[in-house]
């Protein structure tokens, strides 16, 4: 496990608020993610974790406050926003692979169309990434022919193919059958070891313990507690966090 990267901020979230109608899902959120850091966001459902994660590449707009990436505010739209997103990988709960494209094409689409990489080079790199996540033998198949775990590993390879400065994981194992969770977590732990900056919304406490530099506990739209994983799991500083942990760790 790496230390807190080189401690220069990559993402800065300041005083961010967001409502869906009457539901105030993000309340005055402040959060900094440093380069090379792995931040795990946990908390009860409906607490705003996914919204925060999605706001970091502007898949969700915010009502007030600022989010900066690499020192610059997130662009609102157009080419500048597309460029930002190409630098921020995203892995979704439901994989969201392109159903009409093969596994390899899913991985090479971004490099070819966004980065302008030649097909041959993109496929070579794509195969290396599929090798890395352990599904190179499935490269010519279509997403529907793969298991959930294999699809999610493809999604991780697709994000990696863009050489992102950071990857956001929005509950990457929540839609998986139990026996497939570990194969995805193993890939993520490998990324964390290699120094990738990661924000991971998850319910996998084991992953948080093993790979996180920092745990952020969110509830009812607020960041209730930020702590090291050890401290958080053994000696949480807030009642709400202790209450949450007692519900999930006792059995």
């Amino acid at each position, binding site marked *: 496990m790496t230390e807190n990267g080189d401690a220069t901020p990559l993402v800065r979230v300041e005083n961010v608020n967001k409502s869906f109608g009457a539901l105030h899902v993000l309340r005055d959120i402040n959060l900094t993610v440093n380069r090379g850091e792995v931040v795990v966001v946990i908390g009860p459902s409906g607490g705003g974790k996914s919204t925060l994660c999605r706001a970091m590449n502007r898949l969700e707009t915010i009502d007030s406050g600022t989010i900066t990436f690499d020192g610059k505010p997130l662009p609102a739209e157009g080419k500048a926003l597309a460029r930002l997103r190409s630098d921020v990988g995203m892995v979704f709960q439901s994989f969201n692979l392109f159903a009409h494209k093969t596994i390899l094409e899913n991985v090479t689409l971004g490099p070819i169309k*966004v980065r302008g990489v030649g097909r041959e080079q993109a496929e070579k790199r794509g195969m290396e990434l599929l090798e890395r996540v352990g599904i190179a033998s499935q490269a010519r198949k279509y997403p529907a022919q793969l298991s959930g775990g294999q699809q999610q590993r493809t999604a991780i390879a697709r994000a990696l193919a863009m050489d992102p400065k950071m990857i956001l994981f929005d509950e990457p194992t929540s839609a998986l059958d139990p026996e497939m969770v570990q194969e995805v977590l193993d890939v993520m732990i490998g990324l964390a070891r290699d120094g990738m900056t990661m924000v991971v919304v998850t319910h996998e406490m084991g992953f948080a313990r093993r790979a996180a530099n920092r745990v952020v506990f969110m509830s009812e739209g607020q960041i209730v507690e930020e702590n090291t994983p050890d401290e958080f799991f053994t000696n949480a500083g807030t009642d709400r966090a202790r209450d949450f942990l007692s519900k999930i760790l006792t059995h």
Partner: protein
Amino acid sequence: MESLLDFSPLAQEFTTILTGFWSTIRLTLMSALLALILGTVLVAMRVSPTPVLRAAGTFYVNILRNTPLTLVLLLCALGLSDTLQYTLSGDSPTNYYWWAVLGLSAYTASFVCEALRSGINTVPNGQAEAARAIGLTFTQSLRLVVLPQAFRSVIAPLGSILIALTKNTTIVIVAGYIEASSVMKQMFDDYGGTLPIFMGFAAGYMVLTLPTGFFFGWLAKRMAVSR
């Protein structure tokens, strides 16, 4: 009584009839091509993030889809071509051909647009999000991820629209261009409105439309995207 079942006019005018159907085919194919292009542009407008484009697309579809095709073609042939003298060719039949094609494709494009829009609804929103998340622009994500799947899910309805278009070319009779149904009308005038002539032409249209239906049904199955 015997003349009622007299098929000989069909044989006598066989070349004329074939020429008529060839005109029908030319009208159909050119209109289908333009309608597909225009319909795709319209659906891109209707799902775009720009409100002005969305409104323009919606306005177009609602106007064209709810105007009888006869009126559209009369507007093209009598209004724009004859009265306002916007001619598309010095040669009169060519001029009317292109005005008929424009009228047919402008009208059919609104149906193509709506079929494609329902196809877009079959593509999970997450895929569009994933496309944006790897840095594709709106247009790229539409062109590379959403529309290819939308097209494949509406092949069968597009086939129905093509069949409707083939039959709708008969309305070009009001727009001054000679195609199969105007040949039939001419034959009714020359030989009397007999059942055999009618049956011959009906069969001619089916020769065009039935295989179209079978082909698109086969294609829809073959191209289905499994999810």
